[in-house]
């Protein structure tokens, strides 16, 4: 799992676009999309790597909070936003995915205030693993 390769590419991409770090701009969203492609390409080798999954979650989170889909669409008029350079691998095929449900309580609940109490559904699901 060569996660370091994607991290290096991310740093280089930041530098080449003259960015210091995360920010709400189309340029930074472009960095995130490049990083996403790299992450997609190593996903199978990294399936069992916790750092990979953490980085991927961060990626999704950053794309969400910076509204990258909307930002890049405005910028380029295309859904994926980033103009492709020659030789760059294409984005992975997009599969239909349900939008985040409007009843999705945890994120809103997590913003709920200093008490940080949960305000969503109390319908709980269980998962367990044991034995050999």
């Amino acid at each position, binding site marked *: 799992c060569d996660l370091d390769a994607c991290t290096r590419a991310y740093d280089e991409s930041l530098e080449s676009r003259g960015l210091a770090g995360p920010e709400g701009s189309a340029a930074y969203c472009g960095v995130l999309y490049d990083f996403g492609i790299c992450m997609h390409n190593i996903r199978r080798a990294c*399936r069992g790597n916790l750092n990979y999954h953490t980085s*991927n*979650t961060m990626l999704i989170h950053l794309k969400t909070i910076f509204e990258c889909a909307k930002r890049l669409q405005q910028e380029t008029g295309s859904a994926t936003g980033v103009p492709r350079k020659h030789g760059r691998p294409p984005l992975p095929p997009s599969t239909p995915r349900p939008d985040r*449900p409007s009843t999705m309580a945890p*994120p809103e609940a997590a913003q709920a205030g200093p008490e940080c109490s949960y305000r969503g559904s109390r319908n709980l699901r269980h*998962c367990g693993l044991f*034995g050999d």
Partner: protein
Amino acid sequence: PHLKTFKGNMQTCRVQGAWPLVDNPYLAVQVTNEPVLFGSQATATTKVTVLVKGSATPCLNQTKTYEATADAPLPDTFIDGTNKSGPGEAVTIRYQDTAFGSLVEIRIRYIETTVIVRKVGRYLAFSTSMPDELVSWHSGQGDDQGTDGVQLCVQGCPLSEIMDLDSDRGHVLSWADALAKCVAKTSSSPPSTSTMAAADSNEGLGDLTDQYLDWCVFDLMTTGKEDFVLAARSAHRDTLAMDPGAAGNLRNRTAAQDVGAGAAG
């Protein structure tokens, strides 16, 4: 190990090496499984890593990591030495000794989520409950997000990893001997301290039934190690406590128990 998924599917899987059980914006859990015997395909959990992610919520300003390994006592804190974090103790760890081993309960209040890590004998066990919305939301993440989204708790084990309880079990113990040990009323591991005895009396482990009895028999036939009886009992207890509705969904094993009673003498 044996897996009960969020959807209630029950599987026995190889899943050797490191595998993600859960990964959503708030929580990631990964386990590492190793073969229980040389040459055996059956594996058991030797490491559990829990990440309570700090990036997605103001309720936690940094990611808290909990790591348990089978060759050491269960830590009673996160790896940074703390046992709580966030406003109003948004995340807490509670450690408990029991007659059957030790357990750690991680509570994440702002997502109404509980994670239990147990150490029974030489191996670890895991249980979690979390809101339906969180499960169904992260199960929708797909390839367009740059991940193949493996989460054993959500999708179950890949077909290639699923084992058959009858054909893949070992033969260290006979079926009758394994069943007799699994249905026996008493534990072979008496409490060694008053604290443990107190915890034991609170624990109230009931008889093994249903799928959990089948799993216990599989484990004992495969390894001969009676620790797995305790592991099955505590896992059964966690399931009934965290998912009371599961009792009605477990397969009726009355016939097997009758045979077991006969075999036990």
